[in-house]
């Protein structure tokens, strides 16, 4: 029995793992490239190629652009009112009635309710000094150029607001129109006098 065992030594299993150079299967490379491509398509579809302006529910620059709120007349009025309350309202009053003896009213004023706003726009841009009649009353004015520092859009909003509030009923003023008026300004060192203001076209 023991001799039989000696003549039959245990054989190593036939499938012993060996060391051999193996290559990555082609299908894995193809799959990886396809996943990479799909990933790029995903980013393009969901973030406009890493555009830092595009978040969450928006997926492209065009879509974001279409959802920008238009600065319609109502928005412009609200913006103009905010600026008016901040800058002009201190003297002309939040109700546009002015201050007796100091600041003339804007509500129902013939200087505000003009056909065009070319002359009106020069008042905040250049200031007014001297004697001026408003609503049949004589005022001695020294208004600084309070609107000179405002942007065109801000001033357009304020002018739209004062021309269409407190019973005044005039159309809107655009920022482009204010820009044209500003371009026509001379380099006056002094505020406009009432005479110079009257000489200007409406």
């Amino acid at each position: 029995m023991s001799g039989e065992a000696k003549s039959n030594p245990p054989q190593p299993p036939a499938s012993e793992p060996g060391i051999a150079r193996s290559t990555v299967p082609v299908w894995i490379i193809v799959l990886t490239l396809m996943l990479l491509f799909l990933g790029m398509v995903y980013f393009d579809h969901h973030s406009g190629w890493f555009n830092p302006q595009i978040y969450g529910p928006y997926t492209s620059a065009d879509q974001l652009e279409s959802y920008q709120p238009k600065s319609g007349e109502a928005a412009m009025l609200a913006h103009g009112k905010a600026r008016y309350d901040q800058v002009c309202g201190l003297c002309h009053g939040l109700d546009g009635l002015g201050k007796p003896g100091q600041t003339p009213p804007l509500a129902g004023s013939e200087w505000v309710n003009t056909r065009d706003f070319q002359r009106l726009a020069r008042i905040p841009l250049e200031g007014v000094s001297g004697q001026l009649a408003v609503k049949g009353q004589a005022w001695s004015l020294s208004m600084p150029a309070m609107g000179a520092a405002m942007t065109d859009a801000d001033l357009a909003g304020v002018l739209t607001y004062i021309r269409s509030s407190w019973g005044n009923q005039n159309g809107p003023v655009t920022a482009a129109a204010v820009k044209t008026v500003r371009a026509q300004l001379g380099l006056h060192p002094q505020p406009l006098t009432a005479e110079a203001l009257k000489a200007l076209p409406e």
Partner: protein
Amino acid sequence: MKNGFLIFLASLVVLGGSWCAFVLAPVLQLGGLKQTTVLNSSDVYPVGRPGEANQGLQVYRAEGCAACHTEQIQQSGVACDVVLTSVGTNETAVRKAFENGLKQNNWPLFMTQNFHKAGEPEMLLINVSKEIADAAVDTITAAGGKAEIHIIATGPDIARGWGRRHSVAEDYLYDNPVQLGSVRIGPDLADEGARSPDASWQLLHLYAPQSVVKGSAMPPYRYLFQIRQIGREPSPDALNLPKAFAPPSGYEVVPKATARELAAYLLSLRADVPLRDAPFSSR
């Protein structure tokens, strides 16, 4: 090692690739972020925090507020409201054109006329898509009226009143470190300053949350306050606490500098303006 150079090259590519994706790409994308302008306005956003609020950010960080509060509002969608701003000269024609549009195009009818208050612009359509809103505005304009589209951000966070739009990168421009947070045991604080703009309310809430928010789960931060005997006259800074939370008579609760700084920081958290990357119509 037989393939040493190959292994070195492979690890260089892998590490370099992830560095590019996780460090370089975000820096290229947002590293040069600057202040931006508020939509339809010349105001800049964000404005730097005042010194006390800046200190408060460090208190917020030290107290671990970010463990229970986030500072990021999520938005899941965007919707449009159509508002009638002017009926023009022929009101019946405008109404008729709009009603025809409702019938023909299956616009979602909302009985907004019933809620319309005199003197306010009238809502025609609520929560509709941009295409429907554009079509409705075109219909009304063609009939001689005027209508506007209001852009409304939507989502669970916005429905909870935590903000009016999603958070964007500009919101965190002056935060160092950014306290985004990830757990919401308490409400989101990205718009807290606009929600409760009263500093004394914030202080009361820090000292005894349940005194102002019934059923609040927030722990009281009493150690940010000093409970002391009233001197010759009561301090003007002393908290005006309801009876159940007040100290014994003869004592007053005065905020320490840290509490005031934290309250100033909370008031400075305002994400309430429309931006180009987070548009909505302000009303």
